């Protein structure tokens, strides 16, 4: 069916197993020259393992790959790069204390002199509408600009196949549009692009073909332009999806009030909060969007009590708590869940029982004169495991033995089951499969309906629009005025997010 001559990379019967899990099983598909090919699947479907094999980071157990018809067995990323495969990772590998050109040079086998390299970076960035100053420090760049560094680093190698792993999770809608223009330009010049994502609308607007993975197997191919998002989603999940139901709750009194909150970031190259102010009423969900690294982590720390301020800056149910630590804020009625599950929200080497104690100690009354009531703690951990469908052999298991999605369910469940007055969650469904994400969102909405005030910080706009009553954006540590979600358009949200960080200029000049 496919014209043999135009196939660039063919994958035939690839299988890769890790202890306890088959990441890829008999995967077969091919990418043609100049094609934008989507690899679609939920978290844990085996997308990342597949591309790691293409990029020489992992060796398949069986099966073969061909490049232009010849056998292709990259032993290392260097080999893959010299063949013509380049990859932009989801998590950037950049040194913040070095400038753009130095970072690019570090990724090259034989970097040219700095002056020449800077000139080439400028040339490529102008050609593809990705403005970038080679002499700027990476630590000062926005996430979108950092991604440009990674893309330009790849383009300098003149790749035949560009692999992009979840590239839009850190971009504003405008930045996404501009990235897509660049990718379409590359594709028209003959570069094939393998685009990994679970965002269906993006794939429908960008890709020519799609291969859908579920639990490591190819479950279908589709023409994304001719399919609806719902069809694609159901192929990806293998079930019909029900969006969470909203029960419009009664808006009560203000439960969480933040006024003029400014705190310095404790994180190197972090973003300090500047005059953040908002209120959340009982029964209300406030969604806070923003590109990663604009103060989300700091806002969570300032609300959870890990960062302190003067008493009046943060009020729970009218009581000033700004100078109190996490334990006292829990006592006042607030629970919180940080983004980083392993190491921050949970201690990796401790059991789920001990991790249940970690935050439930106060509100669940798990101590008596400082002594821990372990039977009650175990019972609470088991209740969380049961109610939030955490897949684990038992409560005694170490947190690090759980998959990311299961641990996330445990962490969210542990907080939501404490009968909180105020809930603050950063990235509630990050890395969780669609079915579990839906049940987490439902649980959050249920708590709001019961009268809790909820703050959800997320980079997933669709999620926020689905569950939030009001919407605000964190941009460089400043919070926009919250606005009702009803009637907001994606364009308006994009502008609230600070536009495209100077990128629109390039493409406008071109047009």
């Amino acid at each position, binding site marked *: 069916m496919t014209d043999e001559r135009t196939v660039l990379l063919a994958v035939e019967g690839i299988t890769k197993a890790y202890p306890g899990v088959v990441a890829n099983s008999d995967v077969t598909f091919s990418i043609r020259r100049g094609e934008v090919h989507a690899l679609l699947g939920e978290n844990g479907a085996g997308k990342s393992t597949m591309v790691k094999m293409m990029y020489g980071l992992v060796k398949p157990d069986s099966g073969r790959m061909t490049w232009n018809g010849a056998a292709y067995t990259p032993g290392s990323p260097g080999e893959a790069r010299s063949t013509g495969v380049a990859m932009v990772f989801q998590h950037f590998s950049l040194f913040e204390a070095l400038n753009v050109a130095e970072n690019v040079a570090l990724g090259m086998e034989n970097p040219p002199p700095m002056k020449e390299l800077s000139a080439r970076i400028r040339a490529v960035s102008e050609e593809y509408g990705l403005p970038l100053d080679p002499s700027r420090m990476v630590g000062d760049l926005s996430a979108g600009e950092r991604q440009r560094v990674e893309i330009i680093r790849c383009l300098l190698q003149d790749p035949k196949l560009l692999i992009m792993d979840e590239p839009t999770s850190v971009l504003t809608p405008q930045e996404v549009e501009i990235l897509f223009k660049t990718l379409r330009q590359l594709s028209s010049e003959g570069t094939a692009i393998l685009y990994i994502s679970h965002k269906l609308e993006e794939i429908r607007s960008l890709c020519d073909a799609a291969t859908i993975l579920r639990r490591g197997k190819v479950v279908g191919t589709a023409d994304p332009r001719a399919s609806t998002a719902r069809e694609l989603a159901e192929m990806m999940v293998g079930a019909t999806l029900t969006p969470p139901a909203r029960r419009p709750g009664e808006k009560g009194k203000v439960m969480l009030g933040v006024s003029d909150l400014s705190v310095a970031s404790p994180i190197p190259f972090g973003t300090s909060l500047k005059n953040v102010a908002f209120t959340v009423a009982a029964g209300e969900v406030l969604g806070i969007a923003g590109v990663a690294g604009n103060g989300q982590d700091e806002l969570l720390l300032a609300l959870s009590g890990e960062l302190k301020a003067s008493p009046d800056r943060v009020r729970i149910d009218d009581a000033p708590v700004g100078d109190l630590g996490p334990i006292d804020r829990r006592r006042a009625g607030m629970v919180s869940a940080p983004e980083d599950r392993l190491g921050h929200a949970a201690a990796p080497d401790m059991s789920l029982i*001990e991790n249940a104690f970690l935050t439930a100690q106060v509100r669940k009354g798990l101590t008596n004169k400082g002594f821990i009531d372990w039977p009650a703690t175990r019972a609470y951990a088991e209740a969380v495991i049961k109610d939030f469908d955490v897949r684990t052999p038992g409560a005694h298991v170490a947190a690090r033995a759980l998959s990311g999605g299961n641990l996330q369910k445990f962490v969210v469940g542990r907080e939501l089951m404490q009968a909180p007055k105020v809930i603050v969650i950063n990235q509630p469904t990050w890395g969780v499969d669609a079915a579990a994400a839906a049940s987490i969102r439902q649980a959050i909405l249920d708590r709001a309906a019961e009268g809790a005030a909820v703050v959800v910080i997320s980079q997933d706009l669709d999620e926020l629009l689905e569950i939030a009553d009001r919407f605000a954006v964190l941009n460089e540590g400043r919070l926009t005025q919250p606005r009702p979600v009803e009637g907001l358009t994606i364009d308006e949200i994009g502008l609230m997010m600070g536009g495209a960080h100077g990128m629109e200029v390039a493409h406008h000049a071109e047009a």
Partner: protein
Amino acid sequence: MLRLEKRPNPSRFWLYATPVVAVVLTMVFGGLLFALMGTNPFAVIRTIFWDPLFGEFAFYLRGQLLVKAGPLILIAIGLSLGFRAGIWNIGAEGQYIMGAICGAAVGLAVYPTENRLIFPLMILAGAFGGWAWAMIPAILKTRFNTNEILVSLMLVYVAQTILAKASTGFLKNPEGMGFPGSRNFSGYPAAANPELIAGSGLHWGGVAALIVAVAAWVLLSRHIIGFQIRLSGQAPRAARFHGVNPSRLVVLCMGLSGALAGLAGLFEVTGPAGQISIDFNVGYGFTAIIVAFLGRLNPIGIVLAGVLMALTYVGGEMASTNLRLPAAAIQVFQGMLLFFLLGVDVLTNYRIRMAKGG
């Protein structure tokens, strides 16, 4: 080729097996060392591990075991609390010396008054001396973010200088005919720490060590402070999220370990050592670090490890006098124990896999 693979859960079997394997490996390689030095390795191992318990002089040496194990256990348990929290007090030797000086000074100040409150007061002063000496690195760390490893270690040498000054100056025995050293506490009943059961080697220090071991076990497994200590060591960010105040924990752990080291010093100087002298300290504060790790930073394990380490001390002394082995060889032998323990320890969290090819 061998490859290490992280276990999903720490192995309970290896948690308990590693100390045993480490002791066996130490015997094998220590034996090799002794053989290379021209001594019969079996005789040495027998002298170190068997004779103190069941040999000809066991009636005396068994008592020596408790005399040496007591301070080791007392100090090691204090250290283990800090080590669990990721707070590295390496200067227990200094805190031990300062505890001994403070406690002894209180007793000597009221000499020759006889009162039942004198010894308890000296115990408090001993704990205070160690605590205060440990507060120096603790406060420097919390205020100026200095490294507690370096500061506590360097303070050992300051303490030794003060000890020299004490035994030749302000605590010197006025009736000592010019010899350095304080009055001997064995001649001052109100301030002495005698053997409680004749021949057992048990004095108040040993009793304190056992009480502290049980208390530490309860603290770590049942009390919220123990939970916070373990949490801070394993996942510092999760500890802050839970609500641990890192500075307060540093002060608490350094203070506890310092106070316990000070207590050990006081019991030693009023009991087995008998007096403040320039070199009454024999390195218990350093050896206790080995004991803490050998005992898996677990109070019960530390009690066993303390006895085992005391055995190598007593047996080692026997070996060096009877078999004319240099003291350094015995120290290498003790060092091997820590080396193998830490090496084999990898197996608790990793398993070894044979990998095909490269």
